[in-house]
């Protein structure tokens, strides 16, 4: 039981971070119909920039995070302007390959700049674990869970109530109609990428505080795919629920099966779920079912 509680709590925390990263992913898809295979690299850039500032240049942690977020905004805008904009109206296959190219490009640059060895953040969160009955949870986990929930609430409110959020939803719904209402679709796309990069960077910083930062962190970018597909590619509540389900599943199932098969189950479970979801319900839990008519 203790073990179950432990993996359950870990799953919940990891799931909330997945939810956060998936949020950025779903945003881009909703606004511009682009699947972003480079989400993991965006996450890594945010984590590395804040880490370098905090660890190498001794910038206070919060300031370092702020700089990383500003950097992510610039990066997101630049990606949209220089890479994605030429693909507006191109077939979806070209756009997919462009973001795969982008992920390779960013991943390579990250490796050139920061190398491959794991780096750790300076101690920010206290190390003493908090006890919930028999399960011990380190404070970093609680902070990430709290922050993720806060951010998810903020973003949900942003999309529901702020005029920018409404403009973005309008663009996602119908680009032509949005254009005719005087909305600058290009600006919305830029903003979408900026937000996605920021959300990814926050996820990266949180994960970096838990496990340290190395290039394998970018694999989260791939794990976001099962999360987003399970929840429904165009659904924000779906991304949240999907993230938590995937996080729980991989930690609970992985926790019990890993000793039997020699590890690695955690990495593959989300993709097994992905294949099953694609087979029976490709539009996910909350996604919009698209019916094709001739």
């Amino acid at each position, binding site marked *: 039981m203790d073990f179950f509680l432990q993996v359950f709590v870990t799953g919940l925390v990891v799931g909330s971070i997945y939810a956060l990263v998936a949020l950025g992913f779903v945003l881009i898809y909703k606004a511009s119909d682009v*699947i972003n295979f480079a989400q993991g690299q965006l996450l890594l850039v945010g984590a590395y920039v804040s880490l370098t500032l905090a660890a190498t240049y001794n910038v206070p942690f919060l300031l370092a995070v702020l700089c990383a977020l500003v950097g992510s905004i610039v990066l997101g805008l630049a990606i949209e302007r220089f*890479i994605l904009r*030429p*693909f507006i109206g191109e077939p*979806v*296959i*070209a756009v*997919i*390959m*462009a973001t*795969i*190219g*982008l*992920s*390779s*490009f*960013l*991943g*390579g*640059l*990250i*490796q*050139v700049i920061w*190398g*491959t060895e794991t780096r750790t953040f300076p101690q920010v969160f206290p190390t003493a674990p908090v006890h919930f009955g028999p399960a011990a949870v380190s404070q970093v986990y609680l902070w990430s869970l709290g922050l993720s929930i806060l951010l998810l609430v903020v973003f949900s409110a942003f999309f529901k109530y702020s005029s920018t959020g409404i403009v973005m939803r309008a663009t996602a719904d119908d680009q032509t109609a949005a254009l005719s209402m005087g909305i600058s679709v290009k600006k919305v796309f830029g903003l979408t990428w900026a937000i996605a990069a920021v959300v990814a960077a926050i996820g990266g910083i949180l994960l970096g505080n838990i496990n340290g930062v190395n290039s394998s962190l970018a694999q989260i970018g*791939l794990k976001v*795919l*099962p999360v987003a*597909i399970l929840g429904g590619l165009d659904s924000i509540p779906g991304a949240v629920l999907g993230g938590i389900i995937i996080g729980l599943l991989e930690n609970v199932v992985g926790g019990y099966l890993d000793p039997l*098969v*020699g*590890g*690695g189950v955690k*990495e*593959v479970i989300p*993709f*097994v779920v*992905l*294949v099953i979801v*694609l*087979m029976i319900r*490709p539009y996910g839990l909350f996604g919009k079912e698209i019916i*094709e008519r*001739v």
Partner: protein
Amino acid sequence: MRVRNPLVMDCGIYHTSYRHDMAILSAPAARIKVLVLVALLLVFPWVVNPYYVGVANLIGIAAIGAVGLNILTGFTGQISIGQGAFMGVGAYTAAILTAKLGFSFWVALPVAGLVTAAVGAAFGIPSLRLKGLYLAIATLAAQIIIEFVIVHWTSLTNGAAGMVVSRPSIGGLVLNTNQSFYYLVLALAVAAIVFAMNLMRTKVGRAFMAIRDRDLAAAVMGINLFKYKVLAFAVSSFYAGIAGALWGHYMEVISPEHFTIAVSVEYLAMIIIGGLGSVLGSVYGACFIILLPIILRGAAGYLAAGIPGIETIMLGLQHAFFGLIIILFLIFEPEGLAKLWKNIKDYFKLWPFSY
């Protein structure tokens, strides 16, 4: 009187029979060119240093895999991010058959192709319902699940430790030099290219292209989407399996890290850079992607010898360069090197009187 540039092919070709019309190489100049090219390829290993023959072997193997991926992605429009894993299935099938079960390489090679085709077809089944990005994600799942199986089915694959395989032999002759292996690769690569070129001129190939251009319209015209999509996956994976089996028996050691998602991205890069929907483009792309790291490394050897961690930096630069080139080609020349080459030839057809 006809005025023509003696350096280039004729501009117009008159077909006088169906046989002539159907030929792949209808112009005499093209036929001579191909014969010269084949002759050059045959003498190539004896005039250059064995190191370059080794590079040529890698290019040939990559070309087989790239042609396979192009049949699926370029001709049928089904994007796949799993080519690396499918090559792994082929390499491991062949390795298990030869190293563990003692079969001959010549049995293992086709069996590896068939097993990989079956695995590829199985992962292609969702393609009936999924298209575009959903299919890309499904093939990504295939990549990760296959990698997991290779690493964790240790009794069969030795897991992360990898397997040692030996070079194939014909009769008593073991193909243990780069030169002798070169002829095996050359023969298979040429067969793969010719088969792919001919496939695209048959009913099956035309069905593939119809599906790529508009699958609903293809279905309306009576093309069985399920059959042809799964068939495209099977053919493509067969190529991947053959390439993987060859690669394993050429390198003599295989391990899971040779069949990762990075390899799949490399193959995608090959067909994008070479030209989607062009068989020869796949070959150009394979040359480009195999030669690029070698050239980069050579350049770095001169510029940065002795810098610590140069290997990691080189690897990073290589990935960054791949990514950049994929994006640039997609933006500026989506039809790749094949189209660039065609543009150059077209320009010189009328040279110096082009306008």
